[in-house]
């Protein structure tokens, strides 16, 4: 009976969800309804016993041989965190059938993931999405992969073999007090498995109608005096997509990567993690670029982005006492990127110290110091140049956070702030206050007020991008150029968030967040005065546009998702996101970018993921993602449907079959105005994968 009530309320929820449904949305609703009816319409089905494996039937000796998945305290605490947190677990990764991190991130409610072409994605939370989404901070094992040149993440070169990932924590909303600047609208933390958890060999091979790979080889073991180690190599090739104009996008993408991780126990109190990567890859794109000031001035050409890099990280953790731990992390990261129109190199060196201390029963304090030095070389080309050509910048930071148990296990207040000094805009203070109230084990309510800054990148302050040349009056060419502004200020947000989590029954839990953000000093594009320019020759008219900080605005939204264990073998995860944005100009700004930003993030997103465990070690997963249209980009609304079947053939071998984008072949997900590439049309794909552990 309870089931039918749950089913009914589920129907209601779906109807509300799609109440402003267009035709295609209605079809999705029908699809979901049909699926639910198909499952429940059969007599006796709902009567099937809810059964989890009964371990009490096993002997102690057998129990001692079962390997358990251990959930760390930090992860467990997400249920009571005073922030909008979503964790992608290993199990989620296994079930998703995703081939890369961006596809995996689609399951995170509140994230907007739109693929631009084969290797480029626009990924953001709470608006401002684009190829260079500059308000989302991404870290891999504590190493930032947010580019201080372009202010954004190059998803095509940030590869982590999915089999090495322990979990991905996604925090929506500002995280700057703890994670640092640029965590304005969210933080993505990709955390890899300890080498202690990956003993033995692992081989994965796969292929499909548009991909070869990723082929992965990994081997882990234990070396005397060193500790647990793992070496991994991965490579793949993804074939090109057609462009919106129906032409070959020539954007095929290939990457090879090798990496290692060593986890050593130095003493009872000290542990050391060392890890590193090297990678090399290339991806094509079609771009409109200026060639010269003489006709033909511009051309749409196929370019090939070539990138390579490497990084090395060490983290030393020391337990001073059960109440006090320190961690010291050092890393170096080098990356280069080029095509025929630009050539850049970037080095990051970062030192980070943290001290975690429990003061009495009530206070849980984390404080830390950080230093980062970034240096780059930007070779000038007709398209992109920088002044100065090479630059070294430093970032100093100091942060502290105190979580105070006002009423232990009932009311916790967390106060934190980060003070940073950077070479572009000097000091920035980013505070946050969070309160969580847990009246009982099934409910928790939280609220937060926090501030975060997006500090300027080289592209904001030092770049000159020549967009196009035009034939002008009297045979004098016109060059349209975008200039960085050395006086760019930080983009700032003050965010107000509140959330509610509830475990309604042992089978149904709900997590919802409402936010209201106020932004100021957002980047604007201001047209400058036309002037004569002699370099590059010949003499031409320069039509400049310069960055400013003349926009402000508000966003608000709702993010909700649920976990419904329909039966012991079937789990459903519905999710819904509403988003609204209003930007304004001030100070006589002549900016024209507002419609593009406002219409570049969907107002409605909904998802439904289903996972079914079948007999014979089979597992069937399906997910549908609805994304409403992007008016500024003429991208119509779409529903993406992915499904996969996993079969654990034995202890060591598993097979999977995955279909992606099954509903509609060749549709766009993004064609951002800030994107430098021609967007591709997403293709219906299928692939098969085999993995072997030994």
């Amino acid at each position, binding site marked *: 009976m309870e089931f039918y009530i749950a089913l009914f309320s589920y129907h209601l929820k779906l109807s509300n969800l799609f109440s402003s449904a267009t*035709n*295609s949305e209605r*079809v999705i609703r*029908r*699809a979901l309804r*049909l*699926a639910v009816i*198909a*499952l429940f319409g059969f007599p006796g*089905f709902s009567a099937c*016993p809810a*059964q*989890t*494996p009964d*371990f*009490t039937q096993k002997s*102690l000796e057998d*129990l*001692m*041989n*079962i*390997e*358990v*998945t*251990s*959930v760390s*305290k930090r992860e*467990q*605490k997400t249920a009571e965190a005073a922030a909008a947190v979503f964790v992608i677990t290993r199990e989620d990764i296994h079930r998703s059938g995703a081939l890369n991190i961006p596809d995996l991130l689609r399951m995170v409610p509140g994230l907007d993931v739109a693929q631009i072409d084969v290797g480029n994605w626009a990924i953001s939370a709470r608006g401002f999405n684009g190829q260079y989404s500059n308000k989302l901070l991404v870290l891999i094992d504590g190493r930032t992969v947010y580019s201080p040149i372009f202010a954004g993440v190059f998803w095509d070169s940030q590869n982590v073999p999915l089999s090495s990932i322990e979990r991905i924590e996604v925090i929506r909303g500002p995280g700057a007090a703890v994670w640092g600047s640029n965590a304005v609208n969210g933080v993505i933390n990709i955390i890899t498995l300890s080498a*202690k*958890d990956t003993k033995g060999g692992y081989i994965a091979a796969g292929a499909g109608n548009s991909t070869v790979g990723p082929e992965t080889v990994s081997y882990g073991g234990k070396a005397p005096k060193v500790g647990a180690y793992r070496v991994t190599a991965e490579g793949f090739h993804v074939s090109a997509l057609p462009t919106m104009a129906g032409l070959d996008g020539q954007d095929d993408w290939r990457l090879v990567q090798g990496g290692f991780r060593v986890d050593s126990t130095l003493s009872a109190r000290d542990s050391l993690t060392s890890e590193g990567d090297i990678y090399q890859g290339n991806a094509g794109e079609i771009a409109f670029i200026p060639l010269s000031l003489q006709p033909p001035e511009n051309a749409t050409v196929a370019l090939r982005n070539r990138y390579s890099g490497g990084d090395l990280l060490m983290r030393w953790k020391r337990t001073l006492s*059960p109440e006090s731990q320190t961690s010291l992390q050092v890393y170096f990261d080098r990356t280069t990127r080029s095509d025929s129109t630009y050539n850049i190199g970037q080095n990051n060196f970062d030192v980070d110290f943290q001290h975690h201390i*429990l003061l009495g*029963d009530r206070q849980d304090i984390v404080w830390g110091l950080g230093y980062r030095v970034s240096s780059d070389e930007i070779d000038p080309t007709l398209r992109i140049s920088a002044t100065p050509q090479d630059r070294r910048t430093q970032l100093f930071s100091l942060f502290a956070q105190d979580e105070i148990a006002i009423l*232990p*296990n009932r009311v916790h207040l967390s106060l934190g702030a980060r003070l940073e000094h950077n070479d572009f805009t000097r000091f920035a203070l980013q505070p946050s206050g969070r309160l969580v109230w847990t009246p*009982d*084990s099934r409910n928790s309510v939280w609220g937060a007020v926090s501030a975060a800054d997006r500090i300027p990148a080289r592209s904001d302050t030092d770049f000159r991008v020549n967009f196009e040349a035009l034939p002008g009056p009297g045979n004098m060419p016109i060059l349209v150029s975008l200039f960085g502004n050395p006086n760019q200020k930080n983009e700032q947000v003050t965010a107000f968030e509140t959330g509610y989590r509830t475990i309604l029954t*042992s089978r149904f839990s709900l997590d919802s967040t409402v936010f209201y953000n106020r932004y100021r000093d957002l980047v604007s594009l201001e047209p400058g005065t036309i002037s004569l320019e002699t370099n590059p020759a010949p003499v031409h008219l320069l039509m400049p546009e310069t960055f400013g900080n003349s926009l402000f605005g508000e966003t608000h939204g709702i993010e909700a998702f649920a976990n419904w264990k329909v039966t012991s*073998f079937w789990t459903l995860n519905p999710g819904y996101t509403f988003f609204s944005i209003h930007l304004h100009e001030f100070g006589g700004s002549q900016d024209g970018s507002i419609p593009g930003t406002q219409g570049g993030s969907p107002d409605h997103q909904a998802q439904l993921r289903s996972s079914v*465990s079948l*007999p*014979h*070690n*089979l*597992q*069937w997963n*399906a997910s549908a993602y609805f994304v409403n*249209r992007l008016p500024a980009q*003429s991208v*119509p609304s779409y*529903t993406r*449907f992915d499904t996969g079947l*996993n*079969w*654990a053939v034995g*202890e060591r071998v598993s097979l999977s079959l995955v279909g992606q984008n*099954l*509903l*509609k072949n060749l549709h766009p997900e993004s064609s951002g105005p800030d994107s430098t590439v021609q967007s591709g049309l997403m293709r219906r794909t299928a692939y098969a994968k085999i993995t072997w552990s030994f």
Partner: protein
Amino acid sequence: MHLRANNSTKEPHLRQASIAAWGFGLLCTVLLLLGVPQSARGQSTADEYEVKAAFLFHFAQLTNWPAGALDAGGSSLNLCIFDDEPRRQELENTLDGKVVGGRVLHVRPMRQLQEFKNCNIFFLSRDEAQRQTAIVKSLRGMPVLTVGETANFLSDGGMIRFHLEEGKVRFDINLGAADSAQLKISSQLLLLATSVTGVAKADGGM
């Protein structure tokens, strides 16, 4: 190329979606025909706290309480946890209603220390470390089998402590604490323990 593109794509979109809908339904039917999967868990690893709950079941079976100690609970054997114990769900799912020595095992969430008088077993997961010392102290000498997880659980006066070794559950026993509470822990359990401390004459040994 702008909004018109939206309209022109609507019809095939519709058709494909309804095909998918029927496909979805069909798959569900196939699922049903395959039978109701009872043991359909292809996982080689298990949830840590479901396994630990099974250990607790065995601990209950292999412990002898002093005469009269179990009377307070009537015909039930009470395993107590804090009402906001984060592992409550796993413990309840695995243990509630199981029969141990003719008594029905009940997982009892408690709010305050005073309520712990009716407990026969008390479990404190590692996330409850902050309250550990006070609890273990107040239960000292009482016939309550205390099971915990943190490094200093036994030195605080707890009886059995879980730890993980290469992802597998292991446990240590503080026999001295059990003895002073007049609890008799079966030798079968002592043999399987990684270490046994508080043994008379070999205090702190192993």
